[in-house]
């Protein structure tokens, strides 16, 4: 099933009959009328016609989502978001019109609408078209909008050039978002990002502010030279979650100097080698 078919099925299942009928009628009209005003009105009216309950999804639904579009993870979507994305996708047979309409919708969107449109990014046809929209969206000061793009969304890892990717990861730390829900976090790790993150850690240390243990996850695979010195410092002086993070990062480092550093903390070295210590556990403990 396509994402549009899945959204249609999930919403029809949970909405009252009259609300589901309104949505079906509105999406058909959006498709057939050719008038953008129909789409604007329908998108605006979604919250008052359908309410804002959570989208109820089973594990099987989430598997269907991922099968329909790899990496699509609608687990924390709400009904109004699903419906707004559905209304946009009603135009998917005409990718050019969809792109134009989405641009207009984003330009006059309220916060809930923006979150919905950005969560829908991986579902729109002709994916590269939306690169500028996605990087523009990340310039927001509204955390919910930022996270709609950055977290549980496969679009950035698939489409972003390295500079944009690195800015997104760094901004996630700045605004206090967790890194682990970023899709492709390990795959897109790179030496430049590792350097930026170490610089950022130094800034935080100078200011006497805490550093997220997750930061070291993106450093480890590219850690060498002075970066190893940073990890050594964290392993020695950090909080427990930070020390565990440093141990994992040292383990991931390709530099032969990393292993002896890790061995100086026998307990952590053992936990890492035995696979008991994972990034998921570091995050859970932090």
């Amino acid at each position, binding site marked *: 099933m396509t994402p549009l078919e899945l959204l249609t099925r999930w919403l029809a299942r949970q909405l009252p009959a009259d609300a589901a009928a309104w949505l079906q009628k509105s999406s058909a009209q959006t498709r057939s009328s050719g008038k953008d005003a129909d789409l604007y009105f329908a998108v605006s009216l979604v919250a008052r016609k359908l309410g804002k309950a959570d989208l109820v999804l089973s594990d099987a639904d989430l598997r269907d989502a991922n099968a329909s579009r790899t990496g699509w993870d609608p687990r924390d979507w*709400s009904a109004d978001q699903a419906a707004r994305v559905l209304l946009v996708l009603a135009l998917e047979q005409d990718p050019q019109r969809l792109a134009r309409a989405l641009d207009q919708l984003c330009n006059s969107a309220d916060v809930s609408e923006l979150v919905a449109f950005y969560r829908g990014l991986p579902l729109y046809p002709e994916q590269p078209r939306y690169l500028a929209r996605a990087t523009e969206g990340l310039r927001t000061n509204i*955390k919910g909008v930022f996270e709609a793009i950055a977290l549980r969304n496969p679009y950035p890892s698939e489409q972003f050039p390295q500079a944009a990717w690195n800015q997104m990861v760094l901004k996630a730390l700045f605004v206090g978002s967790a890194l682990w829900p970023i899709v492709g976090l390990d795959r897109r790790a790179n030496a430049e990002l590792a350097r930026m993150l170490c610089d950022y850690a130094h800034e935080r240390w100078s200011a006497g502010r805490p550093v997220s243990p997750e930061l070291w996850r993106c450093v480890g695979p590219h850690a060498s030279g002075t970066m190893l010195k940073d990890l050594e410092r964290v392993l020695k002086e950090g909080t427990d979650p930070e020390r565990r993070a440093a141990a994992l990062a040292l383990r991931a480092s390709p530099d032969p100097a990393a292993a002896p550093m890790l061995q100086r903390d026998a307990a952590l070295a053992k936990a890492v080698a035995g696979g008991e210590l994972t990034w998921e556990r570091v995050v859970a403990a932090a």
Partner: protein
Amino acid sequence: MKFIDPHIHMSARTTDDYERMAAAGIVALIEPAFWLGQPRTNAGSYMDYLSSLVGWERFRAAQFGIHHYCAIGLNAKEANNVALAEEVMALLPRYLLKEGVVALGEIGFDDQTAAEEKYYRAQLDMAKELDMVVMVHTPHRDKKTGTIRSMQIAVEQGLAPGRVIIDHNNEETVEDVLDRGFWAAFTLYPHTKMGNERMVEIARRYGSERIIIDSSSDWGVSDPLAVPKTARLMLERGIAAQDVEKISYRNALAAYGQTGQMAEKHWLDPAAIDQRTLFEGNSVLRGQQPRIDELQQIPERIKDLVFK
């Protein structure tokens, strides 16, 4: 006591104002679209402004535990730039039905020109078609004539008086407004509109039925605490508490809540965290904690209750 300021231009105000308003008991406010103090030169800047009313400003208010609603419309002053006005009229349908848009407004007369009348009527038609409430701005100059004319036109366009709030009233206009069945709002604005001692006397004389107070605070010398200050002054001067509550809270809720976009449950029974918008995020506070938990706190006394 809880308060609503049903007319205030927060885009022109600071975070200090938001903090003081929340501390004084203001739980909700309405920000109507108006001009920027100088005329806009293109529809694009109007569009960005309307977007900020449903976007950034709403988010900013939420950081301080205040529920932000808005009214969307083409104001009277800028209706006189016909080229701009035409483009703005075409933009309005993109905003009018959004969540939290409680009214079409503020619209009406400034210089009472033909262009102002044309776009006032056209927007009343829009409000009628979309079943919206209307916030009417009454003019500073030739006020009484302009106020009566605004009401006559609203009736001519088929609006029910109970769906229309006539704002910026004074002693000279209040009777006409109440007699015709419209809501009568009073702007407590130092120097140019109403001082709040006068407002106490109006409450004494006309009671609390369909009477609303607001601050219309903006970039001019104005007071974002005008509603709580005036409510306290009314209490101190012997106006009954239930009347004060109607004038400073409940009537605004009844008038602007008619389309369901503003409801008491939004602040009495809020979701702990709005999962859709993550409104607990604190990018405005830059590291401080949001003040949501202090929402209902009212300081012992607000200094300088009276302003002229």
